[in-house]
């Protein structure tokens, strides 16, 4: 069975500070990795994903995540956060083969950016 663990349930940070949201996964088979973001009163939106190739993937709004196979991690980072980054962030995996794209989510990390 697969599982995803987000190590921090809440991360408070000041504006313009760097942030790292941690994600570890467990799977006996190869997986795709995703970060979704949920802004208040909105649906989840894909932030970035790792399918193959370069282990460092980036989003259009300055976030990046690095796939580390040996540590089974996919941590999300941003060098300087904005107030507008305040949201809930979910790490997720899906099996490369079969399972039809079923996403297995972590518990979520609430990022709170303070002025």
């Amino acid at each position, binding site marked *: 069975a697969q599982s995803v663990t987000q190590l921090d349930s809440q991360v408070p940070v000041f504006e313009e500070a760097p942030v790292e949201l941690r994600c570890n996964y467990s799977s006996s088979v190869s997986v795709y990795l995703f970060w979704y973001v949920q802004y208040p009163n909105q649906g989840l939106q894909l932030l970035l994903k790792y399918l193959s190739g370069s282990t460092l993937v980036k989003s259009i709004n300055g976030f990046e995540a690095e796939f580390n196979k040996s540590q089974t991690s996919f941590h999300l980072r941003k060098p300087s956060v904005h107030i507008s980054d305040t949201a809930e962030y*979910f790490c997720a995996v*899906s099996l490369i083969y079969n399972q*039809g*794209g*079923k996403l297995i989510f972590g*518990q979520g990390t609430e990022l709170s950016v303070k002025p």
Partner: protein
Amino acid sequence: EAGVVQSPRYKIIEKKQPVAFWCNPISGHNTLYWYLQNLGQGPELLIRYENEEAVDDSQLPKDRFSAERLKGVDSTLKIQPAELGDSAVYLCATTEGPLGSYNEQFFGPGTRLTVL
């Protein structure tokens, strides 16, 4: 283009009452998912449709939950009777087919159910 539409956004009912949620997918999206999100948790898959066929309903509590996707477009999720523990957010997501674990899933805003 409109995103995934869900209604109602909020629903408050008393236990033992029936309730239904509706989802309208993005046009052309063949795959539809219903997820359950408990407070403080990530979403968990309830059922997945490929067009009108339920291809994965292993996580759906079939004694009280049912779902349908007539004509392979809109979908409804029903609970009858509702229990206190069913209070949660019910999310609908869709993606372009065919089966693809790498496809981005587009989520609706969810229906927040409160059972009193």
